[in-house]
């Protein structure tokens, strides 16, 4: 069952296209990872889908929540979806919480908006949520302000706030990037536990492949505003097919075995105002051929649940294709 379906989503800032038609489905209860470098369009995809980009952004395509179009829906509809159906948490929890409002007020706001609670019921439920996300002494801490908590605690509070609306999908945008390594693991454990209890779907946006591998069922790799490969997490990490995806995974240090130089992908991410012709990854790709500069390759579906956008994909994923072409010739 598809919960959210994004089809052909495009975003332009000041006439510069930064998202080139994203197709992405998230099933009920599924955990999908979005990985890629900064500026590859991971966050923009979801901010655009929820109508949270600044007014100067031009958004095109379709976003459907259980079949109903939500892109460009009236504000009243979106206000019920945001937080109520799809909740979002962000990278830097300390600045994502309002510094002059108490935690109780900020969690209570969601409870009032999406669950219709008021007064004592808000306080009781906010306390339960703080307990749930592991903030000790919840009763007393409700009247504290964000600066009185640590970064990890603030992210827990963000999660409590997101849970307040009983969402069907949590979009976690780099939820652990600003935190210490030990705290990162705790926050990820918390997200996993909550998913087990509530059956909530998760979109985990991260540039940390390890985080995504542990948490997600399916992973999409993004590059320069496009999805270049999508596969079940286990398949992608064992056998990345797209040259960019395999470059990313090849760049991870091996935990076991002798120390080796890390392999890096040469070059840098292209400027969205001056994308190379054809495949955006072409100039950095070790396998690029003349065909790569013709047109951006389409995201094509292959067996084993994989999608990939590369002119070489069919040779890579369907070895018989080479033989067939030779016979045809």
């Amino acid at each position, binding site marked *: 069952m598809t919960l959210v379906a994004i089809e052909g989503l495009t975003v332009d800032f000041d006439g510069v296209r930064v998202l080139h038609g994203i197709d992405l489905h998230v099933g009920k209860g599924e955990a999908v990872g979005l990985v890629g470098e900064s500026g590859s369009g991971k966050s923009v995809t979801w901010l655009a889908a929820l109508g949270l980009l600044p007014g100067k952004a031009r958004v095109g395509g379709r976003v459907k929540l259980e079949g109903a179009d939500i892109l460009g829906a009236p504000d009243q509809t979106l206000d019920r979806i945001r937080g109520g159906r799809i909740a979002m948490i962000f990278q830097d929890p300390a600045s994502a919480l309002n510094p002059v*409002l108490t935690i109780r007020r900020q969690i209570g706001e969601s409870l009032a*908006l999406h669950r219709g609670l008021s007064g004592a019921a808000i306080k009781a439920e906010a306390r339960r949520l703080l307990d749930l996300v592991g903030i000790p002494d919840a009763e007393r801490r409700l009247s504290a302000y964000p600066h009185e908590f640590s970064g990890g605690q603030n992210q827990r509070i963000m999660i409590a706030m997101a849970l307040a609306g009983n969402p069907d999908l949590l979009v976690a945008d780099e939820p652990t990037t600003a935190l210490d390594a030990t705290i990162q693991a705790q926050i990820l454990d918390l997200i996993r536990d909550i998913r087990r209890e509530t059956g909530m779907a998760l979109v985990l946006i991260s540039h940390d492949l390890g985080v995504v591998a542990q948490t997600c069922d399916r992973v999409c790799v993004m590059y320069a505003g496009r999805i270049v490969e999508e596969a079940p997490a286990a398949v992608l990490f064992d056998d990345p097919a797209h040259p960019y995806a395999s470059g990313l995974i090849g760049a991870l240090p091996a935990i076991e075995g002798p120390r080796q130089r890390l392999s890096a992908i040469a070059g840098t991410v292209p400027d969205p105002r001056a994308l190379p012709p054809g495949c955006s990854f072409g100039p950095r790709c070790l396998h690029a051929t003349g065909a790569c500069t013709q047109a951006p390759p389409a995201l094509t579906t292959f067996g084993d649940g994989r999608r990939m956008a590369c002119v070489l994909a069919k040779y890579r994923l369907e070895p018989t294709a080479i033989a067939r072409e030779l016979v045809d010739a």
Partner: protein
Amino acid sequence: MVYFILSRIARAVITVALVVTFAFVVLRLSGDPALMIMGPEAPPEVLAAFRSAWGLDLPIWQQYFSYFGAIAQGELGRSMRDGRPAIELVLERIPSTLALTLPALAMKVGIGLPAGIYAALHRGGPIDRLVMTLAVAGFTVPSFVLGLVLVLVFSVMLGWLPSGGQDSWRHAILPVLTLGIGGAAILARFTRSAMLEVLGQPYMRTALAKGVPWHVAIRSHALPNAAIPTVTIIGFMVGTLIAGAVVVESVFSWPGVGRLLVVAVANRDLAVVQCILLLVAATMVASNLLVDFLYGYLDPRLRTGARAGAH
């Protein structure tokens, strides 16, 4: 909190003392009150008698200490011109000044705040550009120029309003406008930039992402944060209620504290000048103190800092 309040009050007292000292030294270095008041043709023995009557023949440090001693006892000295207590002269001018500065303050806040908030919420739109153009014009034009232009238009050309004096409420309109326009412009610019800063903060996106409607997010998430820097400017404006109209009172011949100050300085009427400066410094310091306490109320981060400081 007690530590916070005491330290702010101690700082306020030191500030006032420094202002008074500065005024005391500068006034005595820049002219001889005896010559100013008695006139340059006065015989030397008259000048000497004047000086010894007012204690001006004593060494300056002795004058300084006896002056401070008098202030400590609430004695602010007498005018050298007519012998009346300086404080009386000053106090009787205060209502006149407040009759200009209070309506002007209301105008600054009443126009500047909404204009700045509106401009920020409609950034880049025609109204934003209009407000900002007017604001730049309003605060770059000096008040004496603006005052004279208003007189030229409304008194000389149109003949609608009087150009000076204090005979009716109509006389107050032009000076209030002169004061209010510039202040509203400053406040509008400041409020706009404070709002824009806040609107770009991640917590605004968080509020919208959890389904808070836009206008509610502005009211309950943006405004409380934008109020913190805005309060500083409004506090400064409150601090200038008494001394902020020196130029405008002179342009419009309005008999307030500002005009008294100009005349007293010209005459080196030491007690009156010092009394005014003391009052001005005290109001400025008091409004700063008020702003500090308001900060503590508006920004919980400072409150905790103050609490931590008390331990």
